[in-house]
């Protein structure tokens, strides 16, 4: 299932992309010819799929967890009111439909009828109301209350209608209702929902799979929900095995202990390029929902000058980065949105690799070549340190390649990797950095107010590079205050132009998601959102079913 968290924009931690989330025009599947023949196979119920996951679940209620493994697990058991469809557009899940009032301040959700919780109790608007109240309840240890605090009034006039009113129109609000809806009848006796058995031991939701067991550190198991409102899923069991080591997981994949995992670029291009591997697995490839960037502290004396930032952009050979870091499995980035989506502006000024132009720009900015080859300006050498977090191999490689590119134009860049918590608390929060290499996950909703607004430069806030541009501020506000896609697109297109001119970041690359799935699974149809959106329609033909002891 591995759905995108609806409205959560999170920094990527150590291991790069975690979900199978993916998309855009580049999706490709190896061995597509085989699939057409296979499509004629009749769907069958049964079998199990085994996923490999680096991390363990830390709880089942997404309001209180923040890691990918937990959100993944919850997505089998719970539903939201809305979700993203295969083309990354919002569609109803527990909500059959919704209306946004013409002033944009009121959203009315019409809920699906006949939906039941896994224990048989009917789902109603009371559950939605309860979920909303719990999220904004100060006793709930959640980091996600902010979107829901924008709600001025919520009401449920009848069991199948839920209405929320906002102070001002707030476009990202719609996606925030993708939050897991919780069962009131099971949770109301707990003051703190994180202490309930539904979070710790046994989640009960409305989703396509029912919880079976969680062996901490070993595996999480789910079983098809025969009464799911979109039909019983074909695959009887979903087993997520916790395998922290990527190399071990790949051996498990090769030996059949795991049916699906996300490959690294080197595994995809080298280790999985054997005849034997192709016999059993399909590999998929599509643009991931994240990008990597080089961000400058804009108050730094070197980087305050836009010419210097442009020179650096010209000095970097992004093509070589994609080749060297991603083995070609990705694309150059020019802005903060996912290529191919409605909000992505492909026509912003790019800064092609041109070291001569870089040198000229640096000279204009007053930087002259010194005796040792390093540029100097008023006796100061152009020497700075780029920081990145330890444990992320692709960022370390990126730094090493950038070092080469920059030294070619006379800039001495040193590399320092720091453990994540120290990196955030000692360097980012205290603004003690010259430049950083980091990544952002890109949410389907284009609101990036927190990253670019000049009001978000305070302590712990995310515009830590200190970008400030009044036009961008105005456009960010405009973009989040209307539900009109055309108006939003215009605002965000302009923002991308400004970002490209101002270059608070040099956008480096967008990697590809590289899942491999055993080829006994049929019905996988790659789409812009990835492959998991139609997971309940994946199946294994009867004669190829592997795990039969789980059948009822």
């Amino acid at each position, binding site marked *: 299932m591995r759905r995108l968290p609806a*409205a*959560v*924009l*999170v*920094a990527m931690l150590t291991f790069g992309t975690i979900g199978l989330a993916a998309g855009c025009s580049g999706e490709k599947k190896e061995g597509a010819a085989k699939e057409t023949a296979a499509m004629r196979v009749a769907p069958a119920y049964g079998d*199990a799929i*085994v996923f490999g996951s680096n991390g*363990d*679940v*830390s*709880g*089942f209620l997404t309001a*209180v*967890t*923040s*890691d990918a493994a*937990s959100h993944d697990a919850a997505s089998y058991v719970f539903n939201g009111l809305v979700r993203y469809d295969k083309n990354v557009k919002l569609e109803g899940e527990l909500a059959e439909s919704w209306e946004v009032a013409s002033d944009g301040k009121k959203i009315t959700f019409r809920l699906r009828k006949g939906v039941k919780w896994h224990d048989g109790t009917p789902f109603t608007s009371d559950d939605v109301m309860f979920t909303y109240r719990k999220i904004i309840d*100060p006793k709930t*240890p*959640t*980091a*996600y*209350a*902010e979107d829901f605090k924008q709600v001025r009034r919520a009401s449920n006039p009848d069991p199948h209608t839920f209405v929320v009113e906002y102070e001002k129109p707030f476009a990202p609000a719609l996606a925030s209702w993708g939050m897991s809806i919780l069962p009131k009848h099971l949770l109301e006796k707990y003051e703190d929902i*994180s*202490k309930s058995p539904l*979070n*710790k031991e046994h989640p009960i939701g409305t989703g396509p799979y029912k919880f079976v067991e969680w*062996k*901490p*550190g*070993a*595996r999480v198991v789910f079983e098809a929900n025969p009464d799911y409102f979109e039909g019983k899923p074909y695959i009887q069991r979903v*087993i997520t*095995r*916790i*395998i*922290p*080591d990527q*190399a*071990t997981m790949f*051996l*498990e994949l090769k*030996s059949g*202990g795991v049916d699906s995992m996300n490959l690294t670029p080197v595994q995809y291009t080298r280790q999985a390029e054997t005849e034997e591997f192709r016999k059993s697995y399909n590999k998929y490839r599509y643009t991931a929902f994240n990008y990597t960037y080089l961000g400058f502290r804009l108050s730094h004396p070197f980087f305050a000058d836009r010419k210097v930032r442009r020179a650096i952009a010209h000095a970097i050979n992004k093509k070589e980065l994609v080749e060297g870091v991603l083995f070609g499995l990705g694309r150059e980035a020019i802005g903060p949105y996912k290529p191919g989506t409605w909000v992505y502006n492909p026509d912003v000024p790019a800064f092609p690799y041109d070291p001569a132009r870089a040198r000229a720009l640096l000279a204009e900015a007053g930087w002259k070549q010194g005796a040792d080859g390093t540029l100097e300006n008023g006796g100061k050498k152009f020497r700075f340190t780029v920081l990145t977090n330890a444990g992320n191999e692709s960022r370390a490689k990126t730094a090493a390649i950038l070092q080469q590119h920059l030294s070619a134009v006379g800039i001495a860049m040193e590399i320092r990797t720091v453990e*994540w*918590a*120290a990196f*955030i*608390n*000692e360097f980012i929060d205290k603004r003690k950095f010259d430049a950083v290499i980091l990544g952002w996950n890109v949410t389907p909703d284009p609101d990036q*107010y*927190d*990253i670019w607004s000049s009001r978000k430069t*305070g302590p*712990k806030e*995310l515009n830590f590079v200190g970008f400030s541009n009044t036009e961008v501020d105005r456009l960010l506000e405009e973009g989040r205050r209307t539900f009109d896609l055309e108006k939003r697109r215009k605002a965000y297109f302009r923002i991308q132009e400004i970002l490209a001119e101002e270059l608070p970041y040099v956008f480096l690359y967008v990697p590809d998601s590289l899942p491999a799935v055993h080829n006994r699974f049929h019905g996988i149809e790659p789409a812009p959102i990835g492959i998991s959106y139609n997971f309940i329609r994946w199946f294994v033909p009867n004669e190829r079913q592997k*795990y039969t*002891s*789980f059948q009822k």
Partner: protein
Amino acid sequence: MLRYVVRRLLLTIPLLVGISLISFFVMNMAPGGPIGAAADMNPKATAEVRERLKAYYGLDQPLHVQYGRWLRRMATLDFGPSFSPDGRQVADKIRERIPVTLAINLLSMGIILLVAIPIGIYSAVRKDSWFDRISTVTVFTGFAIPTFWLALLLMMLFGVKLGWLPISGLVSLEHDSLSLAGKAWDRAQHLLLPVLLAGFGGLAGFSRYMRSNMLEVIRQDYIATAKAKGLTERLVVFRHAVRNALLPVITILGLSVPDLLGGSVIFETIFAIPGMGQLFYQGVMSRDYPLIMGILVIGSFLTLIGNLLADVGYALADPRIRTG
């Protein structure tokens, strides 16, 4: 003797408090905190949310108050709830991990003793023989080889190429549907590689200790006397030499007690074994203070007890150092 043991046991209490005090403050000096995972780089986490989360975990209190609270709970042997989102009890988290780690460590310790002691004895008795040289090279190879590398090679050979053994984990997915014997066989298969590897890596220490102790002992006068009495070599070695040479091993065994629950992070990560090593590592990475403290306290307690056991065992085995 009894009074000595009781006095030593009582002494562990202030020692434990001291250790926990230092651990607590050092832990809090590390950058970051328990709410970082949820709040850092999360645009939804406003200053207000941070404050609320801090208050929720009691992190808004001064350090000495936090430590006081923890100590008061500890006095009733309550480790408290973990800071991870599931909020499960630290004691439960540790309890479910102990059997795995203990089993692997006991088994590998057994293998080490069974193999290393004879190697040590034989290499000492036949010093500089071919056997001595080859065994020396072998045990040091085991000591020097990076475990993760050897583990991956063996997984590739036995798991992927030959298909004889499972690659990682503790039980197979269909474990529950197996017969009792099937279950036992399933577990044994899963444990084989990790236990053998852990054993191989540990051979060097014990066999070298045993060898040098034996060399020391066989030079003693009483061994010469025993030989002069015309005893067979077997009797000299096993009745007179080995028993004396084993004495220092007791000390090392005692010091190994905390290792039995320590678990190795690299090892458990490679084999996807949900043991104590992984638990502690995750606790540290997510700054799960109660969990870290819980494991540290257990670790230091076992270290102190292990030391005591070594001293007592030594006294029992060697009449010369028995205290009044």
